[in-house]
């Protein structure tokens, strides 16, 4: 039944398969050029890359464990090699600052990032399901419109968007951070690409035969099938939102987000470099935790995105 509703599945390529595997956290099996294990030099280089990757955070922790005198005395070197209790004391000072509330910033950032990620994932999956699996007049044209909007540089809209937020009375409100971010063309593109392969037409057909409404079909069939790609999209949207600095500096004045705390730190503790660095380290910490918890997924997501390129 409803055969016309369902498109032919064509071009089910290995690339899509690889992307799907990768998005599910099972990256494509690595087959080494010759199968033999690389030597110590390889691991040495990788270790060096690792050290360089963590160095800035490590340096921040070391500066954050030191007094300004120690820092100026140790010029040309890190003031110390191991963190001290001073780091904790400085954290305490950052939390106790009267110029800004890091809890408020944390709460705002979390609220914005969660709201934006949830919304982007839901609406992208909804639209992606429609574009990938439903047939309707104008589908092709509308999908092309989505792709075209991806090419337009975002900063063109900055000033008018600010004027709009001003007119809405949303300046200094998290609404200015959440509402414009509720949807994104990239999410629609990503979910459409994924659902085209991950969701067999037979499943949709079966649900329809069983009398499920369209929305029911979406909710119980498409949503679960979309989960791996949705998780990747959520993760990247979360990181993007959390680290975002330009737009929040445009629309926020007193209420802060985590990146906006950083310049405030400088303003609040100008004379205490150690305190500033401890604050910077503290602010950078949450996403490091995300990487530790969801690192596999993040890696798989980056690699899946590439296979589609």
């Amino acid at each position, binding site marked *: 039944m409803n055969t016309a509703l369902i498109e032919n599945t064509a071009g089910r390529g290995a690339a899509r398969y690889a992307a799907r595997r990768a998005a599910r956290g099972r990256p494509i099996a690595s087959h080494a050029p010759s199968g033999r294990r690389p030597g110590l030099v390889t691991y040495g280089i990788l270790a060096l890359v690792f050290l360089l990757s963590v160095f800035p955070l490590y340096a921040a922790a070391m500066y954050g464990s030191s007094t300004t005198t120690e820092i100026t005395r140790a010029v040309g070197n890190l003031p110390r090699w191991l963190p001290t209790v001073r780091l904790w004391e400085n954290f305490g000072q950052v939390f106790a600052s009267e110029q800004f509330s890091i809890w408020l910033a944390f709460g705002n950032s979390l609220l914005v990032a969660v709201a934006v990620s949830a919304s982007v994932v839901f609406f992208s999956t909804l639209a992606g399901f429609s574009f990938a699996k439903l047939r309707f007049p104008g589908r092709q044209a509308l999908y092309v419109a989505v792709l075209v909007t991806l090419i337009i540089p975002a900063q063109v809209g900055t000033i008018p968007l600010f004027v709009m937020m001003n007119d809405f009375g949303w300046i200094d409100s998290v609404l200015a951070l959440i509402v414009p971010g509720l949807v994104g063309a990239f999410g629609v593109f990503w979910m459409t690409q994924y659902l085209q392969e991950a969701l067999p037409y037979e499943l949709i057909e079966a649900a329809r035969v069983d009398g499920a409404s369209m929305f029911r079909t979406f909710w119980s069939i498409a949503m679960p099938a979309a989960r791996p790609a949705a998780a990747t999209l959520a993760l990247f949207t979360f990181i993007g939102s959390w680290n975002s600095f330009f737009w929040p500096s445009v629309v926020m004045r007193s209420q802060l987000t985590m990146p906006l705390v950083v310049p405030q730190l400088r303003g609040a503790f100008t004379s205490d470099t150690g305190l500033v660095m401890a604050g910077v380290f503290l602010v950078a910490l949450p996403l*490091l935790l995300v990487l530790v918890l969801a690192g596999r997924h993040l890696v798989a997501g980056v690699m899946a995105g590439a296979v589609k390129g």
Partner: protein
Amino acid sequence: MALTSALPRTPRRIGWGQRLSRWDVKVSPYLYISPFFLLFAVFGIFPLLFNVVVALHDWHRRAGMGDFVGLDNFAWVLQQPLFWRSLENTISIFLLGGVPQLVLALIIAAILDQNLRARTFWRMSVLIPFVVMPVATSMIFGQVFGQFGILVPNLHALGLFTDSSSPFFQDRFLSHVAIGSMVVFRWTGYNALILLAAMQAVPRELYEAATVDGAGRARQFFSVTIPSIRPTLIFVILTMTIGGLEIFDEARLFDGGGTGGGQGGTDNQWTTVMLYLFNLGFGQWQDRLGQAAAVGWIFAFIILVISLLNFSLTRRISSTDAAPRRPRRRSRSASTAGQPGTPSVIAHEVADDAMEGAGR
């Protein structure tokens, strides 16, 4: 609609439930894409069009819309030495950050593309810089490159600089090097993983054949690996271009930002275009939204031109050696599979960037 003809035609009267279901089938697709299109129209497309209006008016942050001035804002911007200086800075930082980033990413990807132990650990570790807040990176690098940092006193000791203050905050070129290094730090690992994914899809028989033919490791890398990952290379270069040109965070907080800072140096040595736009519209004394909107248009146009230029250039360069015997692309060519390749490659790019850039 095609659906009706596909349904078996029965003379019986159509029941309410069936009619509802048919309505469901017809309307649902539009219903599902409408939240995206509605929100996107309001917060994506409308600002774009509205930007024309703002750019053509005398428009101030506090006073709001003023007189219609035509193209005066554009003329004003193009006459500002600071605009051109910021454009030079942006392109210089882009090159200093982009070229090493690409070379290092290729090398790291090639190293990761081996039969490694603890594979996932190494892959995750190169992503660390990507999740560190760019603003935090900027502050930390500012400290490291500063007068009391790790680098400058040692360079003094080597007799490279005699001035007691940090040359990275004085010299224009060196400030670009410092900011470029932050770009390299943030994006190299991320790009390495993307390139790695492409490298893993290169058929291993090609390497075997090359080995039989007597090609060394370096020769294999340049004659097999690079040509095989061409589409991904284009992808990476495009992301890099757009992301690199929009640089803001790193430049704003390089010298600490805070109150009064964040102008891009005492002599605007490292003011980027985005920083210039920001200061023009929202800086302490400036309040020129009309002019800032004009900067937005001009810059978007420049980015588009550079991206397209880059796109056609990379396409040509890497195809010269790949053309005669392009290897069988086993699981690579997704871009040519379904959607028209080119727009989706570029689109993918910009999207990626937009996600991390303005947070929209």
